[in-house]
Every structure is written in structure tokens, then in C-alpha cells.
């Protein structure tokens, strides 16, 4: 707490972090010389933790460290966004087609059950079959899309991880620490 209030000798940084990313974020910031001095639950959100770090105000290569920190924050945010939208296309297309197919099936079954004529019965069955076919086609499309999205995700995820590793490497060189790859 002493360090937090000592703005003359120490810089302070406050972060709001998702609980599942806590360890990773703390480790990432420690590389930049930030020391965790306070950790508390967020007042509003259950899955968020407020972290307060401090770092001596006068440190070597501060400008470059600040710049690399911005790069790291950008990559971390992109990584988070990537994970949130990992299969966003598959999900949205699946939901749209699924609803449409379900609507076809329900309408078909209802028409077939309610009608008194043969034409109505046949029509209802045809509509229901179209709905079933839609589900089959959707499954095939979604499978391919899911695979494609997974590949893109993995590729970008790996790129971002290696970019983060490069940042870590640059920073540890600047601070004179050690770095290693997991």
C-alpha cells in the first residue's frame, strides 16, 4: 500500500482481469517489472478481479518497456477476442439454418396433422422432409465451417502466441532477466 501512494518513486497500474486469465496476466506484467501489490474482487462483476501493480518510477529502458507493454496488451486483447469469437460464424449460421429447418419441420407436421385432404397431407410431409434435409445439409456445411474456423483460430492463436513470446523475449533482454518457452 505504501508503494501505491508513493507516486513520486513508484508508477501504479490498475487492471481489470477475467478470473480465468489471472495467472497468465500477472506473469505477463511481472516481466515488465510490475509487482502485484493488491488483488481484489470487482465490485460489479463476479468474474472480474481488480489488480494493482507498482513499479519503480525510474527504471532503465522505460520508453521501450512502455511501448512493448502496449504491444503486449494489444496481443492479449486480440487473443481474448479470438477466443470469444472462436466459432462465431459456425454458431450464427448454425442458429439461423437450425431455426429455419425447425420451422419447416413444425409447419410440415402441423399441416399434415390438421389437414383433411391428401394434398395437404403430402404437402405437409414434403415440407417436413425439406426441413430434415436442411438439417442434414446444415450439418455438412457446419462441419466444414467448424473445421475451417478451428484452423484459422489455431493459426492466429499460434501467431499471437509467438508474437507474445517475441515481446517477452525483447522485454527480458531489456530488463536483463531470463526468458523461456513453455
Amino acid at each position: 500500500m505504501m508503494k501505491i501512494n508513493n507516486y513520486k518513486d513508484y508508477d501504479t497500474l490498475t487492471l481489470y482481469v477475467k478470473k480465468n486469465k489471472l495467472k497468465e496476466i500477472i506473469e505477463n506484467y511481472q516481466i515488465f517489472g510490475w509487482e502485484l501489490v493488491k488483488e481484489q474482487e470487482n465490485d460489479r462483476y463476479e468474474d472480474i478481479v481488480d489488480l494493482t501493480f507498482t513499479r519503480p518510477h525510474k527504471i532503465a529502458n522505460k520508453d521501450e518497456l512502455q511501448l512493448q507493454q502496449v504491444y503486449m496488451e494489444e496481443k492479449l486483447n486480440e487473443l481474448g477476442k479470438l477466443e470469444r469469437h472462436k466459432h462465431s460464424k459456425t454458431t450464427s449460421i448454425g442458429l439461423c439454418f437450425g431455426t429455419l429447418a425447425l420451422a419447416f419441420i413444425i409447419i410440415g407436421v402441423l399441416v399434415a396433422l390438421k389437414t383433411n385432404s391428401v394434398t395437404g397431407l403430402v404437402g405437409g410431409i414434403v415440407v417436413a422432409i425439406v426441413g430434415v434435409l436442411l438439417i442434414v445439409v446444415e450439418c455438412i456445411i457446419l462441419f466444414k465451417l467448424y473445421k475451417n474456423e478451428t484452423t484459422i483460430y489455431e493459426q492466429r492463436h499460434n501467431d499471437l502466441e509467438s508474437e507474445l513470446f517475441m515481446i517477452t523475449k525483447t522485454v527480458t533482454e531489456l530488463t536483463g532477466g531470463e526468458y523461456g518457452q513453455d
Partner: protein
Amino acid sequence: MDKISVNRSKIKKSEHIFAVKVKTESNGLGVLKTFIVLLLIALQAGILILSYLYVSQLFQWYLMLSLILSFVICIYVLSSDYHGQAKAMWVLFLITCFGFACFIYFLSDKHILFARARKKYNKILKQTENLQEQSDLSSVANNEVKTNCQYLYNAGKFVTDLNSRSIFFPSGAQLFDSILSELEKAKEFIFIEYFIISNGVLFNRIFDILKEKAQVGVDVRIIYDDMGSHGTLKRKTKKQIISAGIKLHPFNRLVPVFNIALNLRDHRKIVVVDGKTAFTGGANLADEYINEKRMHGYWKDCGIKIEGKAVDNLTISFLTQWQFLNNKPIDYKKYLNKAESFKSTGVTVPFVSGPNYQFSIAQNIYANEIANAKEKLYIMTPYFIPDETITNLIINKARSGVDVRIILPEVADKKFVYVVSRNNVEKLILHGVKVYTMTSSFVHSKIILTENSAIVGSINMDLRSFNQQFESAIFTNETTTLQAINDDFDNTIKHSQLITKKTLKRNKLHFRILAGLFNLISPFM
């Protein structure tokens, strides 16, 4: 009432309820209501017809009057000293939105609302013009440097000093660390002038020292721009500053007093300590400038420190502004000739610019500097909205084989200004100018570097800085400073992307449309 109850009983009995018409009021009342409604409609129609006839007649007069007045004002605008694009924009604006445009023009024209202030400034400047003598420039080997020194003296009596030294800081953090350590050494006076002063960690660090200094009798004065610091410097803090014995003055209050045009802002960044050390640069007094608060990615800024007799130029400039704001005479000599002499490798000329001078010193010195470049011309600026003269000079330099490089931010602080800047700068790429954008950063440094000299300060490469704002900067050709600035350019380019013909934003139609629209108002930006 009876009728109603009868009808209601009918409803109850009826099987086909929806076919029964229920009457809820007596016929007499209905007629009266209808009559009143019709009367009101007729009255409304009558008013509309009358006002149409009356207003259309008035409208004709309005059109006649606005046509004559537009014509007169347009002639006034065309004969003003605005540059071509601004004149064209004002004429278009005045013709299309006459009343509103006239009001805006009235508020922003420095010849109307600034006239009284200009007279006052002239009087003060006359008092200060003989305070210093120009150095003998015969020892300055480089003719281009000598010309610039001479121009700065003739334009604003900014003397050249050959025995001052400067230190360049490539970031706001380094600049303010140096300012803090110099403030701690202060014994006589501290003058601070900033566009933005904001509550935060940086302010607290500085305020702690200023409080101590004021208590031991150091004369501490602060000028802040009322628009720049609006909402960032809290009222409570202002009271604390004053109660600590520090003299505080806002420049051009936002309250419309109409004694000075509202768009004329004090964009200067000056710190003078004891008349021995002075600082200027791009960074304001706020946490984002030292990257202790995140606003637009990494904040790339810069500053410069000078030591020696050259400090007097900035001391006089600050005191001139102070006298203008306080209306009290100042004994300038009390604050001058405080610095010692240093062995220097070049000239140091701190200078200021603003609407109080007859010419746009900022624009002219930039134009001179660009024109003097023979091998390299490096520019770092957050905005790129120059006039045709500067644009053509840059194009000609690039076409003549000069290595022209411009560094702009990748992250925008004001989206519409960024679109115009990017559009302007992309046009230069076609002529051989190398344009870079610093990755994930907002570049706020304002530097021009040539093989002979450099200008570092608060002057953006835009029309507001050239024509409407009070600016501060330093012209120097000190070898070590030029090398440090060159290193900063090299380092910034390492973290930047070169814009190629393939990556032009102008390749996209929507960008060109937006840029075209925003360009219309670019003289205001």
C-alpha cells in the same frame, strides 16, 4: 344518461355484441365539441396562411438582405490574409448558411474579436523588443541556419544564442523527469505555460514541488489554456494551487467575454526555471503524455531542454503572456540574464508564435526549414493539414531527390482529423515521400529535422497551429541535439510501417468520400 343505460342493457342481452353501437355522450355535447375542433382547425389554417403570406414576404427581404450582406462579407473574407483553401471554405459556408456562418465567422475571426487584444499585445511587444540584442552571426558557417536565425529575429525579436546548450528527450516520460529534477533546484522563479494541465499522477508530482517552492518564496506562476484544460483541471485543484501561494491564470476563458476570439488557443508548452533552464516540446502536463494513462495506444512525444542565455527568449514570451492576462506592468530585466554561458556546437533560438504577431512565424519558419533541406527532410507530426505552399515545398523536395520522410500516428485521437491527414499525406507518396505510421501508437511529437538544423516544439503541421494558436518551439543546429533527434527518427521508424502504394487508404472509395467531405472543413481543424 337513460339512453346510455338502455343501450348498455341491449348489449348485455344481445348475442352479437360487436354489432351493437354504444353511444357514450349526448348529441348536443358532440356537436359543440365538433364545432370547437372545426373552429380551431380553421384558426390554425388561417394562421398558417397568414404567416405564409407574411413570412414569404419577409423571406424575400431576408434573401435580399443576406445576398447583399453575403456579398459584402465574402469580399471581406477574400481580401483577408487567410490562405486560399480557407477563403474558399468560408465563402462556401457564408453563402450556404448565411446567419449561422456569419455568427461563427464573427466568433473566430482574429481581426474582429482579436483587434483589441492585438493592440494590447503590440503595446507589450514594443516594450520588450529592445530587451535583448541579436548576437553576431558572422561565426555561423551555415547560410541556411543564419537565414533562419535572422528571420526569427526580424519577425519576433527572438535572439540567437551561440553559447547555450540543448538536450533532446524522445519521450514525455524523460522530458518530465528532467523537468521535475530542475524544478527541485529552483530558487527564484518558476514559469509554467501549458495548453492542457490535467489532474493526475504527473500533476501531483509537480504540484508537490511547486507547493514547497512557493512556501520558501519562489515566484511560481502558471498559465493554462481554459479550453485545453477544461474538465481536466478540477476547480478544487485550482483553489488548492492558489491557496498554496502559486499564481494561476487561465488563457482565453471559455465564458464568452468577446475580448478575444474563442478559437485562438494557447497551445504553448513552456517551463522556465530561474531563467537558467527552459523546456518546451509536444507534451502537455497530463498522465497520458508520460504513458501512465492509456488513451490511444503508446503515446509518442518529445521535448527539449535548453540551458544558457537562450532561455531569456522563453522567459520574455511567458512574461508577455502574463502581462497580457494580468494588465500589470512587469520589470522584465529582473528575470533576464540569469544563465551562464556554455560551450556550444551551434545556435539555439527559442521562439514563440501566435496571432499576436503580424505574420505566422510558425508557418514561415517551417516553410524556410523545408526549403533549406538539401539532403534530408524528416517530419514527425500528429496531424498533417498544411496549406498549398508547404505541401508544394515538400513535393518539390522529394522530386529533387531529398530524402523526405514523414511519421504519423497509426492510432487516431480525432478520427476526422486523421482521415484528412492521412489523405493529405498519401497524396505525397506518389511524389516519392516516404510515409510511416508508428504501430499501435499515437505520435504527438512535432519535429522537423534537416541535415543542418531542427525545430522541436508544440507546432503541429496544420493550419490551426500556423494561424490560430499560440505556439512555442526551439530552432537549433547543435550537433548532439541533431544526432539525438536523428536517433529518435531511426528508432521510431523501426517501430513503424511504411505506407506503400498498395496499402493506401485512398484505394478505398469510402475513405476517399469521407476525406473529401472532411477536407471541406479542414481549415477549421
